[in-house]
């Protein structure tokens, strides 16, 4: 069972918003991609200018640049380079090829390593804060069973990672909003200097400030019930799945042990059959059966690993979803703050225009002490406050609009996850 076939099924069952069909190709021919003739093409001209990401979201499917793309990731290769601490390390790169179905752009191919995928994802997390970003496969081989160490160079691990990366990119491409981001298209086409391009967007600074505001505790006065429910669901699912993965690993280890112990049965039965005359044949076949039994566990555990990979995807999706909920909470909070500020300003305005002191305020005291201020002063203050009110109202309405948009995206992603979950269980 190739995992990409699950992705294929999902693509055809996707909700109506994503109309373009994707074909997934497996590029396993070793002849491709190895020779240097496939070095990066000259950079494609970006068809879309830099967008004002975040606030205004166009919900129409206007055939933006990256719909209709076939992606395939293949050919993991080992390269050597020096990492941050200037030590030589071995890493794997993958060949990312993109072909455009509508034919007016040439296919591209670049070599990307895992850390570059990570950078892309972090960028997306910051620039599209209210979209559930698809998860990446795990960085290090965790939950490894019956192997002595978690080896990132292990061919099985590399293969599973390759599939995970392909799925990630496909989901990004399928997503309306994400696929329109120019960084994504340059990820597919710009071999060198992509990192600089990304860093130039200064997403890192935004990420840091977002992290800071998220980590501060804040209370929202009227939390949106949908999001609260979603958050609870995410937390519970996260707990359940992480526990499941731990127990599943122990179960797999023990199962492996039991099957392999049966190989001892096989060996002794065979030896025994050699010294028996009458029972010899029976014992020999019993021994053979035990050996077959012992070996059969390897295939079973491979399937278990695939299943565990799916569970991990669910886990990462819950984390993604959870972070969207948190960001929404932040948004909500900021909205409320703004609304209160607006209310206060309106009150101030009223006070100024009517000259009445509603409640105890510093203004009232000073006016009593120093006398009423002049009409001009009042007028100018009035204008200032009016301007501020107008600005605040605009911000509030913008935020509210944002507020209204997210559920749509979130429901889409939920549908996505559930369909995927339904497919994978069978």
């Amino acid at each position, binding site marked *: 069972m190739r995992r990409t076939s699950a992705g294929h099924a999902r693509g055809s069952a996707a909700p109506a918003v994503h109309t373009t069909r994707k074909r997934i190709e497996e590029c396993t021919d070793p002849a491709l991609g190895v020779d240097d003739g496939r070095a990066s093409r000259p950079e494609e001209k970006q068809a879309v200018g830099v967008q004002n990401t975040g606030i205004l979201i166009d919900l129409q499917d206007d055939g933006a640049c990256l719909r209709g793309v076939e992606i395939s990731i293949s050919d993991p290769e080992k390269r050597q380079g020096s990492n941050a601490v200037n030590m030589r390390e071995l890493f794997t790169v993958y060949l990312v090829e993109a072909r455009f179905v509508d034919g007016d752009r040439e296919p591209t191919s670049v070599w990307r390593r895992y850390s570059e995928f990570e950078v892309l994802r972090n960028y997306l997390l910051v620039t599209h804060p209210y979209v559930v970003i698809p998860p990446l496969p795990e960085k290090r081989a965790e939950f490894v069973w019956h192997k002595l160490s978690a080896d990132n160079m292990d061919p099985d691990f590399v293969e599973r990672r390759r599939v995970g990366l392909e799925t990630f990119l496909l989901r990004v491409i399928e997503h309306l909003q994400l696929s329109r981001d120019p960084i994504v298209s340059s990820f597919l086409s710009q071999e060198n200097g992509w990192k600089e391009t990304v860093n130039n967007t200064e997403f890192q600074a935004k990420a840091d400030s977002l992290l800071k505001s998220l980590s501060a505790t804040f209370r929202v006065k009227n939390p949106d019930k949908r999001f609260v429910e979603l958050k609870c669901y995410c937390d519970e699912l996260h707990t359940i799945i992480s526990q*499941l993965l731990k127990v599943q690993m122990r179960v797999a280890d023990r199962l492996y042990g*039991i099957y392999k112990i049966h190989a001892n*049965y096989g060996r002794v039965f065979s030896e*025994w059959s050699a010294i028996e005359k009458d029972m010899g044949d029976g014992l020999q076949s019993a021994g053979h059966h035990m050996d077959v039994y012992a070996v059969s566990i390897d295939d079973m555990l491979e399937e278990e690993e695939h299943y565990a990979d799916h569970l991990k995807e669910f886990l990462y999706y819950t984390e993604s979803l959870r972070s969207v909920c948190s960001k929404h909470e932040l948004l909500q909070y900021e909205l409320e703050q703004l609304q209160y500020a607006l209310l206060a300003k309106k009150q101030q305005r009223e006070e100024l225009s009517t000259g009445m002191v509603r409640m105890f305020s510093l203004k009232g005291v000073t006016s009593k002490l120093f006398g009423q201020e002049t009409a001009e002063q009042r007028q100018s203050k009035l204008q200032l406050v009016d301007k501020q009110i107008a600005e605040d109202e605009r911000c509030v309405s913008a935020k509210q609009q944002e507020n209204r948009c997210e559920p749509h995206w979130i429901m889409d992603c939920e549908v996505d996850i559930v369909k995927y*979950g*339904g497919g994978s*269980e069978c």
Partner: protein
Amino acid sequence: MLAPGLSEAVSHPLAQDAFSDSEDAICDDSSATGYDTGERGPVSPASLLNRFPPGGTWEEEGEDRGDLFVRVEEPEKHVTAMETYITYQVATQTTRQEFGGSDFTVRRRYQDFAWLHGKLEATHPTHIIPPLPEKQVMRGVLERFAAAFVESRRRALHRFLSHLSRHPTLSFHPALQPFLTLPDLSEQRRTSGGLLGRVLGTPNWLVGSTGSCGGVGTSQVLGIRPKNTPVEFAVNATYLSSLAPKLTTLERVAQRVTKEQIELATELGELVPLYAAWWKLEGGDLGVCLHGLSGGLARCQAALLQVATANEDGIIPSFHHHGLYTTAAQAALRRRDALQAELENKEEQLATSPHNNQLVIAVESLSDSVTCADASLRADWQRWRGQQRCESRLALAGLAHSQLLYYQQVRLQ
């Protein structure tokens, strides 16, 4: 005359010269205090045929043959001022005349069984005595009384007595009747120590230490090897010495597998509530799948525990018993060897001083003993091999069957 058990060397029970030529009968006349020749209850030729199919295989179908049926059951704990011990109920049903009755029920403790075993070893050193379960000298007090241990010992004791009761020679040992019938055995044990041995003429040096089981305590005299061991016994000895370690390994493997299976069942049990919780969280199709998964895992767990129990009750004791029997057979072979070595020794002495009458008599009697011993051992060997084959087959088939049962139970209904 019809012995309750017939060796496989005799091809058909109704063959004409079968009984008079039976070497069993000739040899054991000297040791047994007499067969019950006369009335034996209605035995028709047809029923005989049923019991001994012409193929000569020994079908173990429970103890529905013969004239002596023994059961060991109902262990009970006894607490006295001096000690605490367990007794087992031994129920006997017999049609033998000399028992003076047809039903007996007595309580016996392990020491009594060990006494009986010692007696058997003393008087029939070159027979393969059915093995007893081991003494528990290492375990603590609590372990000795644990239910599982008591149960497994009860089964082993039952096996001991049922093998004994079906043995053509040993079942007529004089110690067996008091063992099965007397309410209190302690007097017997005190008075008959050593007497039988001297009466029946088995040299003391040949007797292993009484009260041990399976020939573990044989004296170092038996380390003497004879010069001309008959080929068949040498072959058997080699076979046994290569078989014994295999059986130990098999038993260890089975124990390890069972232990891991129980642990696995526990861990599967941890998965069940997790999936149940997840199922409650989800709805729709995914929920249905998860619910099914949770139920399936619960079924797996239950079925796995059953397999583990079946292992503990079936294959593990079977390997163990086989191993004990192997040791008993090895002991019998060694004693036979010792006897022959003694004979050769005496023969050499005779060669140097041919007119020593004592020596001549000694050599003659020894030579008779050796012939007897050879014959009895050969017969016992055949008997044991056939019986063991059936028991092994049953045990291994049980192992396979429990696996099949597992898959059946785990399958989606």
